[in-house]
């Protein structure tokens, strides 16, 4: 789930580690550093890594979905389906998928809404076998009025969006889908636009998570829902040791074999360990101003689904 990072001007210290050769010592030091975002931010400096990072993601973009399947053994599909089930979007909802890259969440969202609408139509047809004149006239008027549900995929990396667009074309999905280049910390949208904001496996790479959360609060409509799928802490010690072994031994190897990029996937695994745990992240979401914040552990805590409402 290696997603692009935030805007290229400032990088934190640990970001730098994944990309400079001869910096292995810093890399090890940063791995053992305690998990505090503030300490990481203190060592910010401006450095133009953007072309290099961009190149990395250019390579990764084509193989992104394959890598996801290989690394998670296909379980990432289950996680994303779980996200949709918890979301339970109603027809007419507007989705913003940030760091959406290849559009997995957006496709599932549109499919879910389509099934909902079919179910509703079937139910309506069943109950109104002989519709009254009033029902018929209502049907004429509502066909134009009902809002179409829309999904906007926003990503900082154009290549990922291109791959997503190709996928959409091959699946034949085009209605209600838009692709926008943008930075999670500074979204190019007006206030109160979206019903649901999702960020799946992307918020880990954002430099200023609290800014991203505040942007989420801003673009959501009142009553809107923020949902975040992200790797998190495994509490069970047995599962945790298996997970650690798998992450550090297998994933960089798979990365090298399939995508030809060991370092990026090593960075991925390390950044997962650095991300705050479920309760801390829940606190951050509440601090940003969301209410009714709740999290669900999937696969024993490997992935956590956080949800909050803008009330």
């Amino acid at each position: 789930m290696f997603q692009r990072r935030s805007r290229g001007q400032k990088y934190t210290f640990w970001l730098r580690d994944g990309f400079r050769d001869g910096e292995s010592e810093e890399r090890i030091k940063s791995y053992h550093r305690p998990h505090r975002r503030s300490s990481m931010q203190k060592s910010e400096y401006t450095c133009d890594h953007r072309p290099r990072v961009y190149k990395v993601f250019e390579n990764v973009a084509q193989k992104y979905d394959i890598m996801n399947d290989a690394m998670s053994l296909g379980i990432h599909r289950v996680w994303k389906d779980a996200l949709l089930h918890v979301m339970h979007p109603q027809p007419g909802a507007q989705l913003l998928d940030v760091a959406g890259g290849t559009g997995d969440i957006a496709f599932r969202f549109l499919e879910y809404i389509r099934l909902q609408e079919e179910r509703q139509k079937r139910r309506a047809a069943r109950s109104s076998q002989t519709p009254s004149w009033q029902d018929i006239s209502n049907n004429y008027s509502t066909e134009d009025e009902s809002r179409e549900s829309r999904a906007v995929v926003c990503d900082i990396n154009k290549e990922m969006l291109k791959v997503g667009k190709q996928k959409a074309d091959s699946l034949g999905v085009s209605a209600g889908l838009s692709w926008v280049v943008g930075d999670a910390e500074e979204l190019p949208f007006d206030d109160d636009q979206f019903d649901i904001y999702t960020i799946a496996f992307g918020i880990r790479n954002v430099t200023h998570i609290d800014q991203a959360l505040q942007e989420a609060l801003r673009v959501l409509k009142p009553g809107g829902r923020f949902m975040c799928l992200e790797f998190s802490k495994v509490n069970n010690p047995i599962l945790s040791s298996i997970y650690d072994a798998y992450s550090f031994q297998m994933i960089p190897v798979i990365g090298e074999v399939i995508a030809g990029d060991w370092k990026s996937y090593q960075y991925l695994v390390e950044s997962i360990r650095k991300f705050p745990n479920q309760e801390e992240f829940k606190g951050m979401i509440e601090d940003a101003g969301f209410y009714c914040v709740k999290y669900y552990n999937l696969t024993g805590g490997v992935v956590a689904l956080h949800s909050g409402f803008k009330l």
Partner: protein
Amino acid sequence: MAALLRGLRAGRTLRGLSSGKTGPTSRVVAAPSAVNPQCSNLNRGFHRAALRLQDESKSDKPPSSSSSSSSSSTTYHEHYQATEHDTAAEASQHDSASDPAAEQPERPNTSYQDQSGEHGEEYETEEQLQSRILTAALEFVPLHGWSMEAIAAGAETLGLSSASTGMFYNGAGDLVLHFIAHCNSQLTEILAEQHKQVQLGQAEPKKTADFLREAVETRLRMYIPYIETWPQAMSILLLPHNIPDSLKHLSSMVDDIWYYAGDRSTDVSGSSLNVRPTTSQMNWYTKRAVLTGIYNTTELVMLQDSSPDFQDTWSFLDNRIQDVVNMASSAKQVQSTGEAVVQGLMGAAVTLKNLTGLNQRR
């Protein structure tokens, strides 16, 4: 004292408004009530005003509250000035939707002290908000049935996005249980009102059977607007995870009805020694079980009743209550007959003993 503190807090909020943040005219109207000690409502109303603001146009933001602060009483004035910065925090949290650019830098610092101070209020507001959404959703039940679509439509009428239905983890069950609780509280109010009338001597106390009949009828009439979708609601209530809650509501309703019918018994055993009306000789559990049975069967009859104004249902109800009364009186008769029979037998035995000379003590 607590009221004074609440008043101070409300005063602070108003001061925050005047410190340059924006607010709708509804808040200016709310200002005079700041002098009222019952100000916790103001904070909640504040939150709701924030919600309403998010619906209304954000383009015109009237210069809020130099007028409001001047209209408030001078006793609070010095408190306002002292706590200006705190209020900026509160105001910024609530105004987050309307004025993000100016407040984003402040919000991370201020929300910490805010959430701890306002914690109690926020939780109340969340639940109140949920119950408001569910109440609004009841209008859409005839159209969408007892389902998430109805809740989504209800949320939209309040100006919230349909995604807020995610707050209701039990989905349609939440809606049905909310409706039942609402009906029960309405019934309790009506019964309490009648009771008060009787206490004041303005109305005649009713006989128990009549009282029960009218209470059950009043309660069932509340279902009439939703009668077409009521079978769906009943099936939702029968789902295993909803059964504890629905039983709780049912038993509390039945208890309330018996309480207002005059039953104050707390013990299990019925005392049969005194001469009392037949209905009060049944014990606590029997009474409630009987009424539960009457209520449930009448509800089922109502579902398939097609007579005008449900006349068949009410006559069914009458018959059931009459059955219960008859059964109670016949139980008493059996008991007294039994006693009489026993006494007769004892007398016959004594007579026999006398005749056969066994009672002789010589």
